Structure formats: structure tokens, C-alpha cells
């Protein structure tokens, strides 16, 4: 028993290392100067730790001289855009996903099996293959260079999984509670809002977080569908630091760290619900 206890902690330590070490290296690079980042062997503890790279993002004029200055200046706006897109996609997944999922979980209708299959199949299309047709559609809709186009496209990408996840969870909610609401003279919408959806909170949150995470990291869509620094998103700006002309390890690593913080905070905040939200999907589906 004692040995088993120690073994557990050894494993936990290994797991923590596995999960953290890669990011730790990125963090170290973010607090180094470009010259120190090139050290051989690497400095595991920076000799001259500096938060200049972070400061640059808050006070872009300080780094005027660097090649990445333009990208740095664009970062706050891009982060904001990513947040708007991410949160909108999360909400869209919750609202549209719940509606569709409810129909699968509670109602019987012709073609439901085919429809669910169609949703799932749409997840299997490689985005690269439909990029140009999609561009043409968005152009015709007048949505190019507009983050609404990204909200639409990212919602399309994530919705099928959300519907599937929510439908599984909805099936585990006892019908009694809706019955009870009916007895209280609630109409259908009231019953949904007051009783049914609150009972599904963990899964709604998990769905939202999933939608946010997926759209937060999306790169090719915003690259093609938006232009300029005003309406593009964080991954596009990050790729600026990675392109050959601007290569600066410190700024690249710092932009990476900044990109990790919002989704991590979100996931951490809702951690408790995420796991339980996935339960029904995992077990019953």
C-alpha cells in the first residue's frame, strides 16, 4: 500500500513534467533576449531574465526598432478579435447545439438518423479542400474582412460535435423534471429555460469551452477571410513572428504564452463542469 502510494506520486510527477515541460521552455525563451535564446547549452535559468518581450506587447513603441513591431502593435486588437470570435462561437454552439440536440434527445422525427449522420460527416471534410469555395461564398455574402465570417465558419466546424455531445447529455436528463414544470403551468420555452437547460449546465459549459478552444486556435480561416491588422485574429499575428523574415525567438515565445493564457483561464475556471459535461457523451453517446 505504502509503495503503491509512492508510485502514484512518482507517476503524478512524471505526468506533470510531461504536461508542463514544453510550455516551460517556451516561457523561459519568452523571458530571454534573442541573443541568450541562442545559447549552447541552453540557459535553464536565464542569466539576464527580462520581461521586455512582454512589455513590448503592452507598450509597442518601446520596440519600434524591431522587425516585429507592427505585429506587436496589432496583437492587442487581434487578441480582442479572437476573444470575440471565441465567445460568439461558444454561445452559438450552446444555443444552436441545444436546439438541435433537444430534437434528437426528446423528439422523434423522420430522418433524424440521417440528419445526425450528415452532421457527423460534415466534420470529416478537410478544410483545405473547401477553402476557396468558402472564400467565394463569404465574398458573395459580403462578409470578407469581417469577423462575423469567422464566427460563422468556426461555428460550422464545431457545431456537429456539440450537437452530438449535447444530445447524449440531454438523454440522461430525466423527463420527470419537464413534467414537473408542465404541472407548474410553464409553457415549453419556460420549461426549457427554467428547468431543462439548467439541468444540462455542465454539458452546456463543456460545449461552450470546446467551441471557444477550437476557434481560438484556428489559423487558415482568418488568414484567408480577413485582411489587415484590424479584423484578423491572434494566430495570424503569431505566424508573423514565425515567418522567416521576422524570426525572433523571444517575441515568438512571448506571443505563444499570451495566446495560451485566455483559453487556459477559461478552461481552469470551468474545469469542474467540463469533466461532468463530457460524461454522458462519453458513456452513452
Amino acid at each position: 500500500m505504502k509503495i503503491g502510494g509512492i508510485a502514484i506520486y512518482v507517476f503524478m510527477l512524471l505526468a506533470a513534467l510531461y504536461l508542463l515541460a514544453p510550455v516551460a521552455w517556451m516561457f523561459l525563451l519568452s523571458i530571454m533576449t534573442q541573443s541568450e535564446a541562442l545559447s549552447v547549452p541552453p540557459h535553464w535559468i536565464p542569466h539576464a531574465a527580462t520581461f521586455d518581450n512582454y512589455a513590448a506587447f503592452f507598450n509597442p513603441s518601446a520596440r519600434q526598432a524591431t522587425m516585429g513591431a507592427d505585429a506587436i502593435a496589432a496583437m492587442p486588437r487581434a487578441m480582442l478579435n479572437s476573444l470575440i470570435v471565441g465567445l460568439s462561437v461558444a454561445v452559438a454552439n450552446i444555443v444552436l447545439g441545444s436546439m438541435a440536440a433537444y430534437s434528437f434527445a426528446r423528439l422523434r422525427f423522420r430522418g433524424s438518423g440521417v440528419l445526425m449522420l450528415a452532421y457527423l460527416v460534415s466534420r470529416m471534410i478537410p478544410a483545405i479542400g473547401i477553402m476557396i469555395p468558402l472564400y467565394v461564398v463569404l465574398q458573395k455574402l459580403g462578409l470578407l474582412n469581417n469577423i462575423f465570417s469567422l464566427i460563422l465558419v468556426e461555428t460550422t466546424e464545431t457545431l456537429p460535435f456539440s450537437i452530438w455531445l449535447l444530445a447524449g447529455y440531454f438523454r440522461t436528463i430525466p423527463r420527470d423534471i419537464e413534467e414537473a414544470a408542465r404541472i407548474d403551468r410553464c409553457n415549453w420555452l419556460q420549461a426549457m429555460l427554467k428547468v431543462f437547460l439548467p439541468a444540462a449546465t455542465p454539458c452546456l459549459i463543456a460545449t461552450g469551452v470546446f467551441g471557444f478552444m477550437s476557434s481560438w486556435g484556428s489559423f487558415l480561416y482568418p488568414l484567408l477571410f480577413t485582411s489587415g491588422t484590424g479584423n484578423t485574429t491572434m494566430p495570424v499575428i503569431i505566424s508573423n513572428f514565425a515567418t522567416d523574415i521576422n524570426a525572433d525567438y523571444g517575441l515568438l515565445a512571448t506571443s505563444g504564452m499570451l495566446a495560451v493564457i485566455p483559453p487556459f483561464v477559461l478552461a481552469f475556471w470551468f474545469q469542474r463542469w467540463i469533466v461532468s459535461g463530457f460524461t454522458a457523451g462519453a458513456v452513452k453517446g
Partner: protein
Amino acid sequence: MTVSQAEPFALANGASGQPPIWRRLFPYWLNLPSIVILLGLVAYPVGLSFWISLHSMSFRRPNRFPFVGLDNYLTALVSPEFLSGLVVTLKFSIASVLLIVVLGLALALLLNVPARGRGLLRALILVPWAIPPIVNATLWQLIFDPHVGAFNGLLVQLGLISHYQSWLTDPNLALVIIIIAHAWNHVPLATIILLAALQAIPRELYEAAMVDRTSRWRVLRAITLPWLLRPIMIVMILQTMGAVKAFDLFYVLTGGGPGNSTTSLAWLTYQTTFVYLNAGMGAAYSYIIMFITLLVALVYLRGLYKRGDVE
């Protein structure tokens, strides 16, 4: 109390005067927004893409696009580029899905053990999940950099190698590194799903085992793993879909090389469409990828819904 599935609309509306047609259409109304979005932004582009795949269309010479029927598909299927891309995609998908399942299972079991510090580890599992793919790719590039990377530095300092190596230049190793990086990024979602399943195991199952003083290993084999079979299948479906489409890591880490050792089908599609500007061929490749994914998914789904509990 159970409400029969056959009673379609018990809760729809208190008012009894609703026309039946409205009731019958209600489920479709609920699905309407999703259907409209998917038709406009998936079905239609996919249709147009299929039309393009039947033409010899290059974005270089876009004014000529003769109809060629299935020529692009035939060319693709016999070309050595396609075959080696298929092999790379298969190797990558199988290896990364297996790795993700194994690591995800190990982490989920670990996180399910009632021990101090579990909460912290549960928070840490969210870290790789929070990393956007493009950051993940540059992150691993920084780690495996042949001249200044952390991996080299670590191995030299531990005395395991005498001087810095170039890890991404070995054709086999390059793919292994991409698999490792991909798995790291995707393990969290697998862990969360499996952990969710573990926590749903009815206590009675374990209590019975406790009475019998069954060994931990036996409990794992006799109770836990069978219970997890279904969630594992779900993880595999999701991860297979992701792996076949994976693109960012190939792009940033190896650009398909050395040689064509990491040129996967998704990467080949990107190159063909956006670098060689061969739209017809690129569209044909996407269709082939889609078909493969569909095939694999159907195999999984058959396994998953074998018992007929699909709604």
C-alpha cells in the same frame, strides 16, 4: 417514471389547439439554423469543390478549365506522391491515435485516484489543451531545434549524446516527432472524456469487487476497461478525424520532408492547391481524404452502435 419514446411531443406546448403540422415540423425548426449553416458553408462549398475536381483547373491559368471527368481521381490514385502520402497519413493516424488513447487512459486513471495533488494535476492537463495548434507547432520547433533547441541541450547535459543532433532530418524520426507533438496537444481532450467515463462507473460494480478482495489489476481488467470500451471508441473516432486532417505541424516542423517522408495527404492537398495552384487535383485529393475518413468512421460507428442503441 418513464415517458414513452413514442409520445413525441408531450411537452411541446400547453395549448391543445396547436395544428399537428406545426408539431410535426417542430423538430425540423429546431434543426433549421444548423441545417442552413451547414448547407451554405459545408454542403455548397463541398459541391463546388466536387465540380472543380472534375475539371483540369489551375489557378495559374484559370481561364482554361476543360472538363476531365474522373481523370484527376485516376491520376491521384496511381501517382507515387499519393501512395506515399497515404502511407504517411496511415502511419501518422494510427500511431498518434494509439498514443493518444494510451496516454489519455493512463492520465485519466491517474487523475481518478483519490490522492492529494490530484486537483493540481487536473488543472495542468488543461495546459496542452489551451495551446493553439500554430503555437504548438512553433513550440516543438523551438524544442527540437538542431542548433539551440532544449532537447539537444538536455541530452548533452545528461551525457546521453555528445553533440547536438538534427532530429527532424532523419526520415523516420521526423514523423515520430510530429506524432509526439500532435499527441501532446490532443491528449487532454481524450483524458477529459475518459475521466468523465471513469467517474460515471457505478459504485456498486467496485463495491462488489471490494467484497471479493479482487486485485487492482483484475478490477482494471474486469470492470474498468470494459466500461471504458465505448468512450475509447469515441476518442478514437474524434482523434482519427483530427489526425487525417492534421496540417499545422507538418507545415511548421518539416514542410513534408526530408524527402517525402512526412508528406501526408493533408499536406499534399495543401501543396497541390495553394502552392502548385492545381485546384482540380487539390479538390480530388480532398475528396479522397474525406472518403477515407468516412470509411474509417463507419467502421468505428458500426462497432459503437452495434447493439442498436443509436437514436
